[in-house]
């Protein structure tokens, strides 16, 4: 198979042909927040609702059997995408945040006691920070943080030193949603295991954009969201090693997570069902599977290479703009994310004026307030790229920034 035609695949995404504001073509540079959806994902969910929709598990009728089969096929498909050993290693959650909370509320509360340590990093999204802060306050667990260097990389010397404090769990992002930094996950996981720690990897940004193999990484938990990888919102996943999942108490209580229930108690269901209480996002699981099918068809290696080209081009072009400061490392160490600050102009104003040009970027702290404080900024403007973005859109972004600077003269 030849190299994928990235320009042509834009046609698979209906929203990319719409116009915004005063008839400007949409330039969508906010995929780090959420990705747009190809027709195949929309069609898979539509077909499910039109033809097969029913509640899953324990249904005897035709529709219930079809719905169950499709939901479980979705689990298999997504599990295969991250190279999980079996479908049962994959728990469907609402999103990455809920997947991390699942580990914090079950594994961590069962295993951690006062005085234990957790090791996080300064570049975490609030979703990989606040669940542990809640735990720390409740259990007297101490949090340590791997510092971020001025270039936007994790300080690996400091990481080794912090591991000697023998944390029970190391939780870090595979790819920063602000700096774009791709962390050396395999090496960090190996070092954590040598120090006796369990590792949770926040894959919200990496799983959509890079080939991720949980067995090659030897990671204990991996959390990610469908909506950032061409799938629907409302569904995400937690991968876990089977021995860990089996030993964990259930998460939420309710239907589907039980084997049997009496008035006084219950017996928990097996993995993964014991973590999926209540009717799950069924159509979304089917959409999730269609999304990974699309990504696999294009090829994750090719997608990562495409985004690498885009980010290198963006860094080059943005680097030409006086008064513009880009956060984070050089192109070779980052994914398709570029957060920047324009001297004297607030990111909200930048984003607002770019919006008038049809360009969708995000302005704010991107759910990483401590990281922004580290860099002495309260907010940045962030442009992010995915497989459907093209170099000419970066040219438009640069033109748009010129307009911003003209308005603020």
């Amino acid at each position, binding site marked *: 198979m030849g190299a994928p035609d990235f320009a042509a695949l834009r046609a698979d995404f209906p929203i990319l042909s719409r116009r915004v504001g*005063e008839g400007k073509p949409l330039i969508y540079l906010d995929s780090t927040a959420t990705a747009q959806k190809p027709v195949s994902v929309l069609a898979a969910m539509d077909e499910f609702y039109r033809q097969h929709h029913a509640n899953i598990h324990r249904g005897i009728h035709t529709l219930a059997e079809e719905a169950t089969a499709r939901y479980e096929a979705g689990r298999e498909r997504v599990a295969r995408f991250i190279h999980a050993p079996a479908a049962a290693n994959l728990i469907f959650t609402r999103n990455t945040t809920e997947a991390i909370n699942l580990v914090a509320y079950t594994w961590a509360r069962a295993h951690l006691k006062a005085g234990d340590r957790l090791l996080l990093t300064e570049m975490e999204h609030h979703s990989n920070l606040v669940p542990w802060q809640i735990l720390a306050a409740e259990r007297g667990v101490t949090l340590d943080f791997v510092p971020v260097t001025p270039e936007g990389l994790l300080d690996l010397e400091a990481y080794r030193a912090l591991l000697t404090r023998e944390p029970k769990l190391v939780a870090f992002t595979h790819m920063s949603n602000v700096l774009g930094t791709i962390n050396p996950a395999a090496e960090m996981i190996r070092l954590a295991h040598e120090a006796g720690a369990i590792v949770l990897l926040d894959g919200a940004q990496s799983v959509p954009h890079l080939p991720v193999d949980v067995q090659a990484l030897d990671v204990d938990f991996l959390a990610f969201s469908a909506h950032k990888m061409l799938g629907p919102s409302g569904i995400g996943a937690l991968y876990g090693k089977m021995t860990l999942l089996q030993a964990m108490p259930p998460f939420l209580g309710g239907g589907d997570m039980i084997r049997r229930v009496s008035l006084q108690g219950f017996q928990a269901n097996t993995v993964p069902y014991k973590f999926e209480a209540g009717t799950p996002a069924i159509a979304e699981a089917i959409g999730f599977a269609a999304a990974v099918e699309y990504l696999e068809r294009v090829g994750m290696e090719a997608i990562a290479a495409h985004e690498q080209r885009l980010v290198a081009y963006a860094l080059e072009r943005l680097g030409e703009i006086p008064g513009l400061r880009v956060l984070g490392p050089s192109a070779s160490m980052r994914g398709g994310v570029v957060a920047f600050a324009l001297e004297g102009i*607030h*990111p*909200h104003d930048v984003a*607002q004026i770019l919006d008038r040009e049809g360009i969708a970027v995000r302005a704010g702290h991107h759910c990483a307030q401590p990281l922004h404080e580290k860099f002495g900024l*309260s907010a940045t403007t962030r442009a992010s790229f995915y497989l459907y973005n093209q170099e000419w859109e970066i040219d438009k972004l640069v033109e748009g920034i010129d307009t911003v600077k003209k308005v*603020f*003269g």
Partner: protein
Amino acid sequence: MCGMDDFYRELIIERYKTPLYRGHLEPHDIQFEDENPLCGDHIEVTLRVDEEGRIREARFDGHGCAISQASADLLMEAILGKTLEEVKQLTRQDVLDLLGIELGPVRLKCALLPLKVLKAGVYGLGEAGDDLVE
């Protein structure tokens, strides 16, 4: 709908770049500060009030987008000579009239932060609630 040229009216850009009422009064009769947690915009207001309860001097300080900073500057100007009772009656429409633009819900929060801070200070409240700018 307003186009971009309307949105970033010359007045707003001018007041953002060269505000007339930026500063901090020391001593002051009223001081209050707060921020918009969504974007980190921060506004402090200090006031000097005379015996009749009229505002003699007003300054704002802080950082944020053009809308929030220009709104603060225009608001400080507008309240000079007003009584505290009159300030309590100010509404979101008064702020929008000062700015002369229409705003979506997110940017409305930027524009209204100065009024929220001002009214919380004048009422002597512990915190600036959204009900102050209904």
